[in-house]
């Protein structure tokens, strides 16, 4: 029990890193995902195909493959190191999944909203920004909550490219003491609390901003 608490104490500070990875990847993924979704639906043919291919390819790959490829790419080409590589890699993944979420949401809005906006004299880009996206974002909240929980859990994979987040810390203290079970249980407990909290917060957001169609 004492060792379990020591594990918790040792691992807990790294929760900052896990949260940073999660929040940064989700936020950047949100922007990129929206762009990809809009490109996919309203873009010109080359943008459309690019968005489609990107989403298809990334969603077909294990997160670890994307992590390794992106890690190699940004370290070799740009010389970037540290947590940033993990953020970029996780963003590359979640952007693809989020683009599908937003695409689904935009498509479920139907063409009527766009037609109505255009009939008011809005340009296509104004219509997308001020009519389509605000609605799509709200419609996407339930699926987006799911994705947030997935990114949180997948951030543990960043340990494979050397990021010291909570899972890596658990490995470290477990190896140092040759006693793994309490270390990974402590780590699991932290994840469980974090997903629980994330879900509660997003449930609240969803209730607050729900859009009924």
């Amino acid at each position, binding site marked *: 029990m004492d060792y379990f608490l020591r594990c918790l104490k040792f691992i807990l500070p790294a929760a900052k890193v896990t949260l940073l990875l999660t929040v940064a990847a989700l936020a950047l993924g949100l922007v990129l995902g929206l762009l990809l979704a809009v490109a996919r639906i309203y873009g010109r043919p080359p943008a459309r195909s690019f968005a489609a291919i990107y989403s*298809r*390819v990334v*969603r*077909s*790959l*294990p*997160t*670890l*493959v994307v992590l*390794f*490829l992106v890690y*190699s790419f940004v370290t*070799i*080409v*740009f*010389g970037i190191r540290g947590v940033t590589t993990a953020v970029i890699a996780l963003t590359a993944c979640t952007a693809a*999944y989020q683009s*599908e*979420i937003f695409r689904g949401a935009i498509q479920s809005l139907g063409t009527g909203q766009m037609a109505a906006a255009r009939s008011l004299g809005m340009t296509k880009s104004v219509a997308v920004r001020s009519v389509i996206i605000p609605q799509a974002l709200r419609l996407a909240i339930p*699926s987006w909550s*799911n*994705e947030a*929980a*997935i990114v949180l*859990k*997948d951030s*543990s*994979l960043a*340990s*494979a490219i050397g990021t010291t987040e909570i*899972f890596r810390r*658990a*490995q470290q203290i*477990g190896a140092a003491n040759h*006693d*793994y*079970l309490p270390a*990974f*249980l402590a*780590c*699991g407990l932290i*994840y*469980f609390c974090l*997903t*629980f909290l994330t879900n509660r917060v997003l449930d609240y957001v969803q209730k607050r901003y729900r859009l009924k169609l």
Partner: protein
Amino acid sequence: MAVTLAGLMAIDIVGELEFIWRILPELGKGLVTTLELTALALTAGLVLAVPTAVVRTYTRGPLNWLFTAYVEVFRGTPLLVQLFVVYYGLPEMGIVFDRFFSAWAALTLNSAAYQSEYIRGAIMSVSEGQLTAARSLGMRPLQAFRWVVLPQALRLALPAWSNEVAYMVKYVSVVYMIALPELFTRGAMIRSRTFKVWSPMISVAVIYLGVVIGITRVMDYVEKRLRIPGLESGHGGREY
């Protein structure tokens, strides 16, 4: 940086292709392991998922709490942590599995938790009247469930289940962390053994792409073949 860029440009294409050709058999072996683990985890997961869903839907009390706790814990923590608890943690309690069995056990328990949620949702969306009608014909509760509710629930859960198949193929790769030589692990091993950063990983990526797209096609076909008018449902489950 200029140097590294130049290094990137000066790739010996033919040499790389030859290299990829040489590592293909090894990657092939890895793919077989990946598919084995996927199939075993999915089927065992389904076998666990049905009773889990039934207990959570139809019972109250301690048994329900137990299964609910199981599902919530396995959905609330990363697969990686589950895998490490089974592979590194349980031996400390005297429970020792080999690599493959540990991987299978962790993947199964993880997938079963998710699958049970799809099935539970599907059971709850089968209307009460179906059960009433079955009972009015003289069916016992278990018969009514077996012949009326369950077939409909499984059909309704199929789209989510299709997603789970593709999801598992990809997520089996986390067993890399316990050095089980499936597809990704083998790619990563070749990568560090040969100091070739790109070819092994890109080959692995292309294989995954083909496999996942193939699986998606097959599941679309299966869904079409098993189509029942009136039992359509949207896709769901873990997106891949």
